Every structure is written in C-alpha cells, then in structure tokens.
C-alpha cells in the first residue's frame, strides 16, 4: 500500500507531494460506483449487446455443428495430412492459452506488485482468462483421432495394468498445466467476486436472483474479520497463480521445444512463449475493454491511463518477442545446422508460407513499436486497431511455428503443404463464438468491474485528498506561524 507518508518539516518545502495516479475519473461516490457497475445487470441489454450476442452465438452454433460433423467423420475433414500433423487445432490451442495469460498476470502478479491500475480491469481480464482457457481446452480434446478416448490423457486409476500415461510426454505436462491453470484461475476469479456478489445479493429485489446470489456469495457479511481473512486468501491465491503465468506457457512451449524438429527444437521457447502469451493476452484485454468501455459507459473506470499502461506492457512484451525472433534466426545461422538454416532462412523467409511470416513480423514486431509515441497511446482508434493486429499476429506466430516447421522437415521427399478446409476455419471462428458468447453473458450477469476494489481505490484517493488538505492547512498554519514569528 502506497500510503502517503507525512514528510518532515524541512522536506516539505522542497518536494511538493505528487497525487497518486487517478485510476477513476470524475470522483464518483461509492453509491455511484455500485450503480455504474451493476447497471448492465439490472436493466435490459441494449441493441449493441444483442447484435454482438447474435453474431457470437451464430459463430458458436456453426462451430459446434462442425465439431459434430468432425466427430462423425474423423479429423480428416481438416486439411492436415501425413506431413503436417498439427495445424489449426494446435495453433488455436496455443493462441487461446496465450490469450488467457493476461488475466492471470493482471490479477495475480500486478496484485503482488501493488499496481493500482489493475483494479478496474482485473475482473474482466480474469473472465477472459477463463473463457480463453475453455476455448483452448476444446482443441486438444477435439483434435485427437478418437476423441471419445481423449480421457486417456489423464492419469486415472484403471484396470489396464494399471496403465498410466507417459510422463515423459510434454502433452501430458500440458494436460496438467492447463487443467491446473484453469482450476486456479476459476477459483481466483470466483473468490475475487464474492464481496461483489454479496453487493448484488443485497441490492436484489427479485427473489430468485436474491436466492442465487445469496448462495453464491457464501454468506459474506462484510465484517472486519471476513475482510481480513479475505485479503489473506487473495494474497495466497495470487501467490499460487503467479508461477502459473510463467509455467503454463512454458509447458506449452515444451510441446515444441522438446521435439527434434528444426524450428521447434529450441531452448528459448519457454521465455519466448511466455512473453508472447502476455503480449497476446494484453492485446485481447485491450480489444475487449475498448469495446466494453465504449458500449457500457464505463469510461470513468476504464480510463485512458489504463489503456496507456497496457500499451506500455504491449511495447515491452512485443519487444521481447521481437528479440526472440531475432535470436531464433541468429542461432539458426550461428549453429550451422543445415536443417535449421533451411527452416528459418529458406522456408520462413522465402518459402510458400512466407506471407504468414510477413504478417507475423508486421503485427508482432512493427505494431508494438508504434507505442513509443504518446499520441498513438492516447488514440482509441489506433489502440483498437493495434490490439487487433496483435491478436492476428500472435495467431500467425503459432501457425508459423507449427505449420512452417512441420511442412518441410528433414526428408525433402515428405515435404508437403497444409491447405485449410472450411472446417478448419469454421471451428476457429466457432471458438471465437464460444469466447465472445461467454464474455457477453458474463458482462450481463456478473459485475465486470471489481466494485469493492474500485471503491477501495476511490477511498484511497479520498484519504489522500484529506491528507493533502490537512497538510495544506498545516502548512498554512506553519506559514502563518512563521510570518507571525517574523512580525514578532
């Protein structure tokens, strides 16, 4: 807690105190905050919401029916083949897992680092994490040849020996990493919502709604003791979730890093993937927040300062990603391995999928560099376009890593191409449908901004204001005293 220390008398003259950054604009009262945040939940949705929902639900329905067809026909309906064993499926998986990372970063790491600006965005970022991991989890489940046996990837007691999973396989690590991640994120998200759920319970007029929220708010009473326990649990969970931010995508990257393929077999993958994940996650958070703040009238709580802070994170992680790309090329050149050199210099730069590589560089290397300019960081349209480019770029990054490495491996005789079918594209769109449908429902039924945290922030501001005014009085008194003394 950045409490305001009262400076000593002598310091006071040289260092006028900076006010803490204003993460809530317009100085709303506590009542206003509650009203603002809960307004979408208590009224009927607007037209914009309905349009968005209809589109998302249509995409989801299409995706689900295509998955149904997939189950009936086999994954041969996709464009994958005996040269390229993974394509859109695992690309989408890695993409969605990456998206999830921003939520955890915001809610856990920024909590530990006491970054106040996280308060108004962490709830929706966490929700995004949950939905993104749901989308991510979908793909490994449907990408297997016999999805009805996908549960064999879990080590459960069985009568076949018992026959366990192969603990040497990174895919098994993936199963653990992603399921742990999902569990912790869900618990953390839910726990963070309890005080707000209690607020909804208290405001609810509808009996059923009251019943439901009474049940889900677990008897929250807002007492001092509850709050104190609650803060401790939040910190503990944040501590638990923090390593996951690093571990999940590190493990996902090991799917590739532990393989023998040039383009996959690389030791920089874990940090490179984590940076990329945060980069893409923040891109997605930014997209979502720009939409919601403008459609839900939440500009007061999701301020330009928030967006600017996020664009700085994008600049940092984007630069790390760019550095990783460079490093990959450097090591491919430096190690002299003809297979790696081919993969990077001949195939990525000049092969048939070079355009994918080009999109990736454009979106992930050049786009974030725009954020060096204050004017771009302050422009909503620029930020919106950039955030979408970030997501396109990161999807292509995974496509480049997976397909461009697979389609031309060691033996030129088995080189092939991957050409997506409508089912590849349709299920990708379907996953976006799932994501946005969930998110749109979320903003209607749950508080998308952590009311209690924002109130705390506002409260803090109030404390600060009071302190400042007290200090001013004190100073005025002192000055009066000095003058008096001089007169005397």
């Amino acid at each position, binding site marked *: 807690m950045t409490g305001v220390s009262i400076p000593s008398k002598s310091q006071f003259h040289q260092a006028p105190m900076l006010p803490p950054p204003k993460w809530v604009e317009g100085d709303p009262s506590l009542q206003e905050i509650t009203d603002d945040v809960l307004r979408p939940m208590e009224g009927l949705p607007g037209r914009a919401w309905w349009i968005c929902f209809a589109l998302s639900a249509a995409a989801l329905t299409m995706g689900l029916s295509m998955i149904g067809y997939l189950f009936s*026909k*086999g*994954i*041969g309906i996709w*464009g*994958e*083949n*005996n*040269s*390229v*064993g*993974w394509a859109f499926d695992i690309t989408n998986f890695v993409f969605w897992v990456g998206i999830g990372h921003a939520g955890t970063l915001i809610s856990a790491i920024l909590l530990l680092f006491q970054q106040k600006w996280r308060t108004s965005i962490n709830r929706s970022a966490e929700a995004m994490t949950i939905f993104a991991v749901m989308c991510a989890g979908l793909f*490994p489940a449907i*990408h*297997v*040849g*016999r*999805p009805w*046996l*996908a549960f*064999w*990837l879990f080590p459960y007691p069985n009568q076949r020996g018992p*026959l*366990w*999973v*192969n603990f*040497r*396989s*990174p*895919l*098994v690590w993936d*199963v653990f990493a992603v399921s742990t991640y999902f569990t912790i994120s869900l618990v953390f998200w839910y726990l963070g919502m309890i005080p707000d759920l209690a607020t909804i319970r208290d405001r609810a007029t509808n009996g059923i709604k009251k019943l439901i929220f009474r049940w889900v708010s677990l008897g929250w009473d807002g007492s001092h003791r509850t709050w104190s326990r609650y803060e401790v649990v939040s910190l503990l969970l944040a501590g638990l979730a923090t390593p996951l931010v690093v571990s999940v995508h590190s493990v996902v990257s090991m*799917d590739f890093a*532990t*393989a*023998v*393929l040039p383009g996959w077999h690389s030791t920089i993958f874990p940090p490179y993937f984590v940076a990329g994940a945060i980069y893409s996650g923040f891109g997605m958070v930014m997209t979502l927040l720009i939409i919601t703040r403008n459609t839900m009238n939440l500009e007061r709580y999701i301020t330009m300062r928030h967006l600017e802070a996020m664009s700085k994170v994008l600049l940092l992680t984007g630069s790390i990603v760019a550095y990783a790309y460079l490093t990959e090329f450097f090591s491919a050149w430096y190690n002299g391995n*003809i*297979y790696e050199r*081919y993969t990077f210099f001949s195939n990525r730069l000049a092969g048939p999928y070079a355009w994918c590589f080009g999109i990736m560089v454009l979106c992930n290397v050049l786009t974030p560099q725009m954020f060096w300019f204050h004017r771009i960081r302050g422009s909503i349209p620029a930020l919106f376009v950039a955030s979408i480019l970030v997501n396109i770029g990161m999807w292509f990054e995974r496509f480049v890593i997976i397909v461009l490495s*697979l389609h*031309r*491996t*060691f*033996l*030129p*005789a*088995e*080189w*092939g*191409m991957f*050409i997506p079918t409508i089912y590849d594209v349709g299920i990708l769109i379907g996953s976006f449908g799932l994501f946005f449908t969930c998110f749109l429902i979320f903003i209607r039924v749950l508080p998308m901004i952590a009311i209690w945290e924002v109130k705390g922030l506002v409260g803090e501001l109030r404390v600060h204001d009071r302190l400042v005014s007290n200090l001013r009085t004190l100073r005025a008194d002192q000055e009066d005293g000095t003058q008096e003394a001089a007169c005397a």
Partner: protein
Amino acid sequence: MKDHTQCGETPTYGKSLEASRDLSADPFVILSNQPAEATRRDFLSLMGFTLAAASLTGCSRGLAQKAIPLAASSDRLIPGVPNWYATTCAGCSAGCSLLVKTCDGRPVKIEGNADSPLFGGGTCAVGQATVLSLYDDERLRGPLWQGSDTTWEEIDRRVMDGLSAARAKRQKIVLLSGTLVSPSMRNIVGQWARHPDFRHIVYDPISMSALRNAHLKSFGRALVPHYRFDHARLIIGLEADFLGTWLSPVDFARQYAITRNPENASYLSHHIQFESGLSITGANADLRIPVVPSMLGSVAVALLRRVAARIGMRDFPPGPDPLPHEMALDAVGDKLWKHRGESLVVSGVQDVSVQVVIAALNAFLGNIGKTINLSRPSLQRMGDDREMEQLVGDMNRGEIGALILCGVNPAYDYAEADRFLEGLEKVPLSVSFSDRRDETSSHVHAICPDHHFLEAWGDAEPVDSCFSLAQPTISPMFETRAAQENLLRWLGQSGNYYTYLREFWRNNMFLRQSAIQNFDDYWDQTLRTGVTELPSQMSGHSTEFHGPWREAAQTIIESSAPLTPSSNEINDRYELHLYESVGLRDGRHANNPWLQELPDPITRLTWGNAAAISPGLAKKLDLQSGDIVVLKTEHAKLEIPVFIQPGQEARTLSIPLGYGRKQVGTAGTKVGVNAYPLARIVDGVRRYSAKNVAIEKTGKHEALAATQSHFSIEGRPIVREMTVAQLVPTAAAAETQGEAASSLWPARPEGDHSWGMVIDLNSCTGCSACVIACQAENNVPVVGKREVIRNREMHWIRIDRYYSGSEENLRSVQQPMMCQHCGRAPCETVCPVLATTHSSDGLNQQVYNRCVGTRYCLNNCPYKVRRFNWHEYSQNPEYDYTMESPMGRMVLNPEVTVRSRGVMEKCSMCVQRIQSAKTAALQAQRSVRDGDIQTACQQACPTQAIVFGDLKDLNSRASRLRRNQRYYHVLEGLGTLPNVGYLAKVRNPLTT
C-alpha cells in the same frame, strides 16, 4: 525352401458343381451376416465367398468330389495356419513363379518362388497386386450372351453353332490372343490350327515385333532372345526400361543386381542408358544421356560405326553423329570394344532398322551366346503387328466368321480401336474370355469369363524349356470356366483342362527328364516346387549374324538426317514417347486400386498419368505441372496434363500407357488418359513414339496426385552416393556407428534379439514391388486420389526419390523409406498414452488399441514414416477401394489388424512374421535362425536389396552388412540410433 504344399488333385475331381455348392449350407460357412436388403450383386458376392470358404482345401477346384467341412478337417488345413501353393503369375507374359499364401481357403498374399532359376524369389508390383484382382467386384459372375446372363450349356451350344456356321461358309475362324506362354495352351491352339480356316493371331499391346523381325533378318528366326545381364560388364540401354517394365523386369533386375555388386568390384558393370524420358533403368545408370526418340537409331548407328571401324569394316555408311558431345560416344565405343564378348546392348525402339543395327552391334562384339542367348530364347512377345493389322482389315471386309478373343482388349489398347470395333460388328460370332465387361468384351456376342489365374490350372514357359506349373489356390469364386476348357470343348473334346494338362505333361515334360520314373511322383514334385528346367530342344539353329546392317544403318541415317526446314518450325515440333508405367503396365490391371495408388517410381504420380516435359520446355511454353495441353500428331490428338520432369529430353514428351480405361470397373474407369491411339503402325510395327507433335495449351488445370513434391535433396546427407574409386579396396571398413552416445534415459531391458534391416541403395532399382507387398501383407488401405492429393497416402514403405548428377547426366537415387525402428525413437517419448513403445527385441511398436491419435509421434518422426487414419478407410462407402465390399475384404491378411479411424500406423517390420517364426522355432526347440524371417518387402525384392535379420547375431546377414563400409544411417546426427540402415549407392563412371 518354404514348406509350400502341393495341391493334390487327390480323389476330388469330376463331381458336379452342385456338390460343392451344397457346402454353402454347411454350418462352417461363416459370413452369414448377409445384408437385409441384399441386392443381386451382394448375393452373388456373398455366394462367391461362401463358395470360397466352402472349398476349404483351397486347391480343389469347383468340381470337387469330396469337399471337406472344417469340422472334419484335413490335416493340411489348420485354421489360422496358412498354406502355401506354388503357381505361376499371369499378371503379364513374363510368367514369374509364385508361392501363394492361403489362409482358411483364401489366397491372401503372393510371394516369389525362390526355387525359380529365372526369377529367384522376386516379384514385381503387378505380380504382388494380382491377388487383389482375384477379389475384384467387377468380375463377371458367369457367362453372358448378348449382354445378358446365361448358362454355360447355352453358351456352348450357341458358340458351336456359330463356329459350324463359319466353317460352313468357309469363313475364317480367328483366335486373337496375347502371347501364350503356356505350352499346353499352345498345344490346344495347335489342335485348332489343324483346321484350315483357323488362324491364331498374337497381339501384344506392348509389342516387340520389331525386335522379332530384326532377329528374323539377322539370325533367320523371329524370336526375342533371352538376355543375360548378369554376364555383361557393359550394359547399354537404348530406351529399354529393363528394370521396370521391359520384357521380363524381375528376371533382368535380379541379373542386373548381380553385376552391380560393388563388393565384387572386378566384376562390376558399367551401365549407360540413352533414353528420352527418365526411367528407373536410366535412374540407376552410371551415365544417362537424354536422346530424342527419333535419334536413338542414330546413336546405335554411331556406336556401330565405332565398333565396325575397330574390326576393320571400312565401308560403313557415313553420317553425322547424333550427339553434340561426341566424346561420350567415343568413350562408349572404346568401352564396348574393351568389353567385347561381355557387353550387352538392348533397345526397346520399335523400329526394325534400329533393332538390326543393335543385333549387328551385339554380333560384332561377340555377345551372341554370351550375354544374348538365342538358343534358349524368351518365349514372350510373340506378336506380329502386321498380322493384327491384316486381321482388322479382314474383319472390316467381312472375311472373319468367328473371332475368339483371349486375354486381349484391342478396343482399348489398339491404336485404331475404332476400326477394330467397326470390324468386330461385322463378325458373325465374337467371343471373349475377358473376366469383365471391358471396352472390347462389351461389344462381343458371348463373354465367357476365364478364371483368375489363382483359381486355375496352367503352365508356363517364359524362357525356352524353363517350365512352371500353375495350380488353383481357391476354387473358382464364380461360374467361370477356364479358357482352355472352352477351346477344348468347342473342339468337341470331352474332359477338362486339368486332365488335359496332366496328360500333356505326361507326354512331353515327363518324357524329357529322367530323374523321376513315376509320372505321379514327377507331377507332385513339380507341383510342389512349381518350376522345372529341362534341356532345350531347340538346336541346330544358326547364331551367325547375317543381317542387312548396312542397309539398316543407311535407312536410319537418311530418316534421321535433319530435314533442314527453318529452325522455327523445328522449334515448335516435339516428339512423343509412350512407355509402360511400372504400376499399370499395359493397362489390363487398371481396376486394381493398389496399382492405381502405387506411386510411379519416377514421377511419383498416382491415380492418373501425365505427359512428362523437361523444365526448359515448361518454361518456354509457360506450363506448370497439371496444366492440360492438347497434343496433336498426324493421326490423333490427346488432351493430357503435363508434368515437369527434370532429366526429360528437352523436345520430348513422355506419356505412360495403361491409363484412361473407359470400361473396367469403379476404381480404374476414367483414370488418366489413354495414349494408345498415338501408337500408330509405322513400317509394319506399332511404334511407341511419334515425331512432329504439336502442343497447344488449353488453359485448363488438373490437380495431379503426387506422393512426393520435392525431389532435390537440398544438400542433405540422406542418400549417400559414391563412385567405385571411393570404395576402400581392402574392405576393412570400420564400424560406422562409433561408440554409443550417452543417454539420459535409463537402459531398457533387452531381449534375445534386436531386429534390424539393411537396405542396399545400390541394389534397389525402385521397382516398387516392396510397396505392394507391404500393402498386401499389412492390410494397408487405399485412400483414393483426393486423399493422395492431400498427402494422406497410407503406404508403410515408400520409395523416396532424389536427383543425382548434373543436368546433362541426371539420374536419381531411389530410397525405400519406412519406420527406422530407432533405438532412441523420438516418437516414443512424445506419445502421451504410451501407444508407441519399444520392444525388448528392438522394434518400435504401435499399439492401435491404445492410440488416441494426437499425431505428436508423426510430427516428431524425423523420417515422417508414420501414417494416420484420417478417416475410416475400411468398410466406408466413401472409400470403396479394397476394404469396403465383402469381396474386397477377403484379401485381408487375418494375421494383421485392420486399423480404425483416428489411429496412427506404420511399418511393424512384419511383426506377425517374426512372431510366427519365433513360434515355429520354439516348437522345434531351437533358436530363430538367420533367414527364418523374411519381411514382406524383403521377400518381394527382385534384387534382394532389403535384408532383415537379428543384429544381436553378429553373423547374420544384416549384421555383416552393417559392418560394410557403405553402411550409414539416415539422419545419423540426430542420435536416433535406427535399427534400419542403408548401404550407399555406388556409381561406376566410365572414366574408371
């Protein structure tokens, strides 16, 4: 020797068909899951199955006297224990000796008969695939008269009436057949020939009548000699793909491998190939010179001129040398002279003059009697193109009273098919022995379907006095009848062909040998071994060359002299070269999905053909692979996609024959383009090349189904190639493996064996027999053109091909690639569910039941040998190739699981064979010996390029080869420690 059973005719002959059909009511007969709404066809196919299953002895024909239900089985038939029968292949006229594996009464796998002196246990891809043709759903179920079902009695009556009518009108009765390699069949035809109005005309779709005529002119006898490549130290081929398709490729490949063994360097041959399109023979050559087809004769003349100069013949017709770099010709001439008496020049050019010059070359070099055997000639390709031409004329003039077609399909493969069909309409009685309605048989009066050769008795004499017998391995599945039996019946003779065959052998072959006194013993013995070689009866023929070589050379020089029109005109006139493809050969097996999906060893195209053009020509005409062009010759035009093929002669288009069948069955109809109409008769011989071809672009494009798209090796050490000079002469080569690298993994428990394989790239010709053998053995599905285009072919073994050499001397190296059974397999560590594991015997195992299909193993396999079942490929109407119909599924090997959708599969090193050999050894209380186990690919290989064995046994053949200096592992640097290794390809350049 394999314990192949002899099919006793035992006392089981002569009873009526009904007796055996009754058996279908026998409780044993499985497959009672007759579909509820069974169509006539379903009924018939099930009927076929029940008949087959009923005929448990597997070798008693349909007319069984005593068919035995399995409840009281013969000791010869144990469920699950295969029986082996020796027989003779009828896939082409080469007549290879086979062993056929039958399981529970069904033939399921074909193997070469190692006892054969000609073929030595090898087979070709077509031979391997013939077993599938047995279960072809399109085969006729019984005789047809005027297109509708009828009985044999009816057919006999009508045909004999028709024949009498023809005789009464003194019209000719003609038997039009392919080359008859069967001596007993020739004898039957001889009986017909006693009738003055009868004529027998031999028609080979791929004719060698120029060669025969040249030998008639040169040596006084029209014959095709038996070539001995194994005695040659210098082999020169002019457009003769003798390793792939020419004459008797299994025999020749076996011989060729003997002379190409670098471990026997003093005997190592040179091989020079002049050809227009890249063939597997050219790919294996030491020097390959692309020559436009019309100039091949000039090359022969140029060589003859050099040889003639050496022997002092001064009056050689003068003429220019055909090649810009005459150095090569001089060098070849010198080599020829150096190796006189041990060289061999062969040519597939259908031009009598060229063949006379070739014969002169061989004669002047003293090769006759050494590398060319005229006293025991080959008895194949006996057709004379002029006779066929005359016949078509006679038919059109209405002079033919009856035409019997035996094993021929001229409406498809004759250049003037329309004229043939017009003539056919004028013939009062036409009969075909075709097993299906095809382009010809659908226009005849009577179709009398012949047995498949696996259902039939027979004999063969592919090379003079080298006999083999054919016996049924299953009773006829349908109401078919042997062609020989028809011919006998229509002659008015009683009895069946089996009795005839036996009597024929009693009166001929039996009398020519003296080792066995009792004919029954002799018969049983010959049936069991399948082959017998007798002293030749042909003698006293001159081998003195007296051919008109000067005139021939003069003709060639004149015809190939540049016509000196303006250069522009020459520039847009191209030449055409038609060739047999390795998979489909002359096209008769077009309905065999295995062969349709077999990648061409050079273009690696499946499911269709394309005109190969050189990259330069493609650039000039702005064509991409798959662009459709129209080719115009003087007589015909053809719309066909092009395929860019490096190594192709710059002005020549090469088109494989055998495609574009109009009527053959679901798999083969309308696949590719029929190029036979371009094979016109020139100077009395059908010529498989054409000059003055114009190319017109159409702007259309067709997706070609190639299984390989990239042919450059990108400088990677995947195939290794060396010259003889680079071999260490002492052969004291060090072990290439070096010390074992350290590993993070704990050591695995090791068993008694470590199964491994060594593949000699120098012996491998790329003939692809192993691919089909593997497919048959391991129930590998056929996936069809659409899936091949999407890179989803399922072959467990594939023949990768990489270019080698320079643009002017471009060849390629063929590399059989299958699971390498890595000691440290990248696939094994990444499978999350342990579906691929390592056996204590060194095998990388795939557990289908456990596989969920993450495909991680496929991605992590550096050799990309794993094959995923993207769809359900069996019992799925969308993949109606081999595993959909009850008939097609009869070919499945009961020892190997059929994989379901969503699982990974790959080479298992024929683990079922390993297992049964181990069981046999256990029962005999001994250990498994080297050679007990032969994998399917190894067994099929005519050149024995694949050697399987126990690497823990330091004296096994595989272990010994692993100590060879040429031994290496593919992608050694990855540390995968494969159990499969390769021996480098060795070229023997002329300069050494």
